[in-house]
């Protein structure tokens, strides 16, 4: 029986979302699927790693028992010698417990996990893992980099500018002048955060400085985007390696003055937005319509754009592409990529005919397929270079 480690939590503002993704959307269907020994690996907010079967239980986190657990439980060490091995003290006579991991299922959201850092470690360990690789994760989690890559692939975006935190301190005037090239309303976003954290919609110049401060509070790089008129916001979950397949194009239902922020996504069951009619349903992340209510041509165009973004950024396994549509001009614009969608966006995959169990099983197959391919790549060759010295 293969052992699969589900890694979640982390030093991220999306720490709690990651716990729910891991326990509800990954570990539960893996248990139902059967055939795997599931090892939950929790990364605390301070970055310490823990590994214990008890961490599969959501009540451990809800009741605050986790604090007590972390005080008593040994921290986990990692060995990346010939694969990934978890090591922890057994608390008896200095003995250690070892667990060789066959596959890793990262359930991390946000910094230090979804952004390629964890993937780098897993690449070093040469262990198969679910989801995007180092480069795609890093690109996806840097909104500036993602725009640069997709723009170079000919994929449209709304007008945008970016700057570093230091630019605000050293050259506020120049930074504001860059922003002035855009038309209000604007969106000010931290470049690296997901789940809409730290994003502010700015309707006029007097709100701008405050929004920049908020974004800078969360990140050292900020992106400012021009809002899209006649906006239809859509998102497309995608699955696959070389031949990605889309789920259903999903349309979050929002009032014109709203945007899909953290509160809307996770805290209110999506009640912030107004229901526009049709067969709208609560998704795991809010109130949305699946499939999006768009003319067929526009629907297909958005799906093609989503797949083009997935390919251009080198995504693998799973990702979710957010796009903006100007309903008058019918222009589809890339907005963001989420390389580990919250809850795997399983509600959408269910609508597309893939059950939660099928989804995790498919993701494991994709991870193994990608890893097997990577093993065929030559990474070393003999040279006489050292003999010169």
């Amino acid at each position: 029986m293969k052992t699969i480690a589900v890694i979640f939590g982390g030093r991220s503002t999306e720490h709690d979302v990651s716990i729910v993704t891991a326990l509800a959307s990954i570990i539960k269907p893996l248990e139902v699927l059967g055939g795997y020994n599931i090892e939950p690996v929790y990364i605390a907010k301070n970055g310490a790693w823990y590994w214990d079967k008890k961490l599969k239980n959501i009540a451990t986190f809800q009741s605050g028992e986790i604090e007590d657990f972390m005080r008593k439980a040994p921290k986990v060490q990692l060995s990346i010698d010939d694969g990934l091995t978890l090591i922890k003290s057994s608390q008896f006579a200095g003995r250690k417990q070892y667990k060789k991991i066959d596959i890793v299922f990262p359930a991390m959201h946000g910094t230090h996990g979804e952004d390629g850092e964890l993937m780098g470690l897993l690449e070093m360990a040469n262990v198969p893992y679910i989801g995007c690789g180092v480069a795609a994760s890093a690109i996806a989690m840097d909104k500036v980099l993602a725009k640069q890559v997709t723009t170079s692939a000919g994929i449209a975006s709304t007008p945008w500018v970016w700057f570093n935190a230091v630019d605000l301190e050293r050259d506020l005037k120049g930074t504001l002048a860059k922003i002035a090239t855009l038309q209000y309303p604007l969106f000010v976003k931290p470049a690296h955060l997901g789940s809409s954290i730290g994003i502010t919609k700015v309707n006029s110049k007097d709100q701008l400085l405050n929004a920049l401060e908020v974004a800078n509070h969360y990140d050292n790089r900020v992106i400012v985007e021009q809002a899209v008129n006649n906006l239809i916001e859509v998102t497309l979950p995608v699955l696959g390696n070389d031949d990605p397949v889309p789920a259903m194009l999903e349309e979050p239902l929002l009032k014109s003055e709203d945007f899909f922020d953290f509160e809307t996504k996770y805290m209110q069951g999506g009640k912030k937005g107004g229901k526009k009619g049709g067969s709208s349903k609560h998704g795991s992340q809010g109130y949305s319509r699946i499939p999006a209510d768009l003319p067929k041509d526009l629907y297909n165009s958005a799906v093609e754009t989503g797949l083009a973004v997935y390919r251009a950024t080198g995504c693998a396994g799973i990702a979710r592409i957010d796009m903006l549509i100007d309903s008058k001009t019918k222009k589809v614009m890339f907005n963001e990529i989420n390389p580990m969608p919250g809850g795997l966006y399983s509600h959408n995959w269910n609508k597309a005919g893939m059950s939660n169990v099928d989804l995790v099983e498919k993701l494991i197959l994709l991870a193994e397929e990608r890893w097997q391919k990577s093993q065929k790549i030559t990474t070393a060759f003999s040279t006489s270079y050292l003999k010169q010295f």
Partner: protein
Amino acid sequence: MISRITSFFGPTYPKTLAYMLQSTEYQVKPYLAWYWRTNNFNDVSHRRSLDKTRRARLLVAGLRIGIALQIIVGIIVLIQGIQKNQVSDIYFGIAILLSYPVIWAHLIVIPLLVARFFIVLPKDRRAVKVSRRIFEEHGAIKIAVAGSYGKTTMKELLLTILGEGKKVAATPANKNVAISHAHFAKKLRGDEEVIIIEYGEGAPGDVARFAKNTKPTIGIITGLAPAHLDRYKTLDSAAKDILSLADFLNEKNIYINNESDPLKKYKKSSYTPYDQNSVLGWKISDIHVRIDGMSFAMEKNGQKLSLQSGLIGRHLIGSLALCVALAKEIGCTDRDIIVGVAKTIPFEHRMQPREMAGGYIIDDTYNGNLEGVRVGLQLLSELDSRRKIYVTPGLVDQGKESMHVHQEMGRLIAKANPTKVVLMKNSVTHWICDGLASGGYKGELVIEKKPLDFYTNINQIIAAGDIMMLQNDWTDNYK
């Protein structure tokens, strides 16, 4: 062996005994049979847990007090034996201490037996006697519904359709034995135009006794299938009991389901057959079955009724048609009939469709016979879907016929050819597998060892385009 022994002395043992009694409806024989075949009392409740009713709480408290007293007595005897250096007392004390689980598992049935024989049974006999007079004097049309399956459905359909235009009363839920009939009689107001009484037969002589008590004027026999064979022993014996309703009615006003193959050999010319083609001169046509309902038309002497029902399953068309025909016979208007049929919706756990994770489950877990399996699979075959999943633990109470019934069940499943079959692991699983193999089933077969886990995680397995049919229930008192 060790786990069996330790489970006797676990803290949850009294609760487990109460659960076993509750699950066997406080019947001593099945409880004791279950008790003696249980290997591990920590591993008894798989399907549900103890419902903390007043009676259950009293039982648990009684067991705990009794066990505590026995332990105290055992300790006292043991200490005295040690103090007096009496080996026999020491052994006796140890015996008292060790024997409490077995002793209290049996002692607990004594109050139940005493209460049953000296309080419940005499009280029930008096109530039934009173009800006999109530039924006899009541001027309503009295419809008795009997059969191995489909009784509750037929009763509910009659209540819904006839009730749209007439004052109708029916026995509640699946309360269908003599004492339930007696309680029902007490609640009758006297102004009812139609009374519907469901007969829940379980042993030879039941139906004749129910008929004698309730004095029906019309009898409906919904079908014959192997059920309660632990008591009836043979299908023929079950048929004779069910058809004793026709004897009571002198073979007049008897409506018989023409789609029940086993019933056909008992059919007489004086009986009125009903099926999805015709009933009482009405011709049935234009049947359309969807996941969310059905439509059909009935025509007689140039009069046509177009009907819509929320029920699903072609096998229910005959029952609906009989209700419509009887409604016409007793003077209901066409409008009342159409509205009444439109109000028929699936009953809980009986061919009840439910949307889940974009797909559909059809909950037919209250079905408990082979005929129900046959029609369930027929429905699954008829509906359009991307993936069809059939889930069953098998059928309980099949007596000596169990092997044949489950092999036939496997063949029926193979014929329906669902994408995936999930069998709940128990004593009949291998027979269903035999039937699947002989039927040439080539789809995916899963043997599920943890039924509760499966049923509670269906939302993880199903997706849009899937239909999952759940049939039959296998409670913890069956192995």
